[in-house]
């Protein structure tokens, strides 16, 4: 599904990613862990085409397409979803309008008619339950005045609405209490199918207790320095990142 080769990327002339190689197949869940500043969020930003970052070298192939040539909105319409670490507030724009614009943009891209109001509301209600969000959500402005936990649940709600092929969860666990974490993780798990894939970026093992990864990578200083099964996450939890830092200095 996704193949990243020798990816280099920079922000304001400073190189952050220094040759990433990563392959994600259908049905897989990958965890990317690593200490602060290692480039985890940069990787997710580059995958979704955030214009703040510049790719200087390497290739990303997604379902046979050159991902780097696609506009951010087309990457979304092709099924790549990012759950933002810091979801953005858009005052005055209701969630329902925002989501309808998004869902219809996806539908138009796939040559489908816009969703009818009734179908849309039904879909919203159904997906909302998954995240234990109440009906007031629809009329509230996008992320405005949401608590940290609500913002993250709202991200996964949007993911549920858009049913992506590749979901990238960027530090979705940060700022969540244990109940919210359970709800979010539960939502993500329910959305998992053998046809889609997920990349879970996290600093801690905690989230991985709920979302079980197939493969765990350690990102350090802009490179993936270790790849292994779920036991790697436990090792990191126990020993911290210092042993990695010393090993790869």
């Amino acid at each position, binding site marked *: 599904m996704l193949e990243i080769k020798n990816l280099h990327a920079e922000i304001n002339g400073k190189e952050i990613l220094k040759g990433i190689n990563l392959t994600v197949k259908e049905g897989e869940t990958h965890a990317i862990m690593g200490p602060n500043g290692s480039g985890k969020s940069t990787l997710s930003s580059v995958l979704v085409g955030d214009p703040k970052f510049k790719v200087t070298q390497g290739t990303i192939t997604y379902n046979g397409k050159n991902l780097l040539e696609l506009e*951010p*909105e087309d*990457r*979304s*319409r092709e099924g790549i979803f990012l759950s933002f670490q810091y979801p953005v507030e858009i005052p005055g724009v209701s969630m329902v309008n925002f989501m309808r614009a*998004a869902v219809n943009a996806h539908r138009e891209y796939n040559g489908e008619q816009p969703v009818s109001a009734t179908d849309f509301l039904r879909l919203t209600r159904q997906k909302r339950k998954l995240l234990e969000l109440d009906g007031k959500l629809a009329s509230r402005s996008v992320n405005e005045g949401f608590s940290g936990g609500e913002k993250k649940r709202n991200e996964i709600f*949007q993911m549920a609405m*858009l049913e992506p092929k590749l979901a990238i969860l960027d530090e979705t666990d940060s700022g969540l209490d244990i109940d919210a974490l359970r709800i979010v993780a539960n939502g993500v798990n329910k959305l998992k199918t053998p046809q889609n894939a997920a990349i879970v970026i996290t600093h801690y093992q905690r989230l991985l207790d709920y979302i079980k990864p197939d493969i765990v990578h350690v990102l350090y200083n802009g490179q993936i320095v270790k790849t292994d099964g779920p036991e790697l996450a436990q090792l990191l939890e126990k020993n911290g990142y210092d042993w990695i830092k010393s090993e790869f200095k």
Partner: protein
Amino acid sequence: MEEEKNNIIQEVTGNEYKYGFETKIDTFTFAKGLSENTVRLISEKKKEPSWLLDFRLKAFRTWEKMEMPNWAHLHIPEIDYQDIIYYAEPKQQIAEGSQDIDPELEKTFDKLGIPLNERGALAGGMAVDAVMDSVSVRTTFKDTLASKGIIFCSFSEAVQHHPDLIRKHMGSIVSYKDNYFAALNSAVFSDGSFVYIPKGTRCPMELSTYFRINAANTGQFERTLIVAEDDSYVSYLEGCTAPQRSENQLHAAIVEISLAERAEVKYSTVQNWYPGDKNGKGGIYNFVTKRALCAGEGSKISWTQVETGSAITWKYPSCILKGDNSVGEFYSVAVTNNYQQADTGTKMIHIGKNTSSTIVSKGISAGHSENSYRGLVKVAPNASGVRNHSQCDSLLLSTTCGAHTFPYNDIRNETAIVEHEATTSKISEDQLFYCQQRGISVEEAIGLIVNGYAREVTKKLPMEFAVEAQRLLAVSLEGSVG
């Protein structure tokens, strides 16, 4: 990236003005030019009583001695008042006295989305007075409304059938001496709407006037008068469009609203006069005096305006809060793009005790446009317990536009609580990217964000208008980020 964005701005702001078509209809017009004789001819054409002609002539003589105001933050090219036609009347191809409407006119208003046929009206009903150039061509639901004692008709008709009401109220709120354009309007006004809501009556449907300029080289000078008696309520809407032409056209209107005790009037405007092309050629010059007098205790006037059109907008819907406990509200979104200029705002004149006012102004500027908020909050010495809250926000969508705020406070009573907040912002890259990541294109994202920004105002509009306003905001601006 920057260049790409500019391209999007260009592309989107180059959008065709949807209402720029012209109706081919035989039109009777006066010769160009303005003199005492023009004024007499208009009055004669309308078979007006002599007191009204006298009113016009006094106004004309006053206007002749006045100078064009130049205090606004506007660059107004010299207007040749002798090069304008002051009266244009579409000739309807129907039998004299018939209730029918010329099919060509009906088609025109259909195209504008204005049903002139009562059967075609929206559920819930909206009564329409349709004004083309200098005359009202149709007023719907007159009979339904009359059964409740409500008068809704063209101004000319009101002069004939309700002369006492017109004589009592016309010019009582906006005097013909008030300002240059008010004097001009008072001399040459041609048509408009008259609304009378009797005591204790709640108007059962929205009333609206749709102003259409069609004839070339013609100015439109309409007057609207709304009289709301004790304990009455009405929601009134005003819409405007004009054909796309390379010459400028003048529109100078007066709106007067009189509110008795506990009367409530909501006046909503979606102003979409032709704004000129992307190089600033053509477009309507819109010089309007709108004022409401809350004469009665506990009365309430609410102005909501969405201004997207006109090459130049000069307009300050105002509230004179004379009755104790009366309330004035002003909610405004003014959008300027390309080379449009707007100087708009309000005046809240607190005379009665415990009067309160709210001002919410959202300026959205793009291209090379200039957008100013100008507002006065005045509290008279005897007006104790006054409250005002003003909020003036500017959203800038390019680096070449200008946004200005000119708030004036004149507070003569120390018990007044007057608050003013102002913000200036841009659409953030983060907001745009967030939308894009959800599959929403940049253009659509800007439409969404701008509508969100203006929502505090547009949500005050009646449903049918709100939808139109949202579409207009998106069309006139989507994609404009600098």
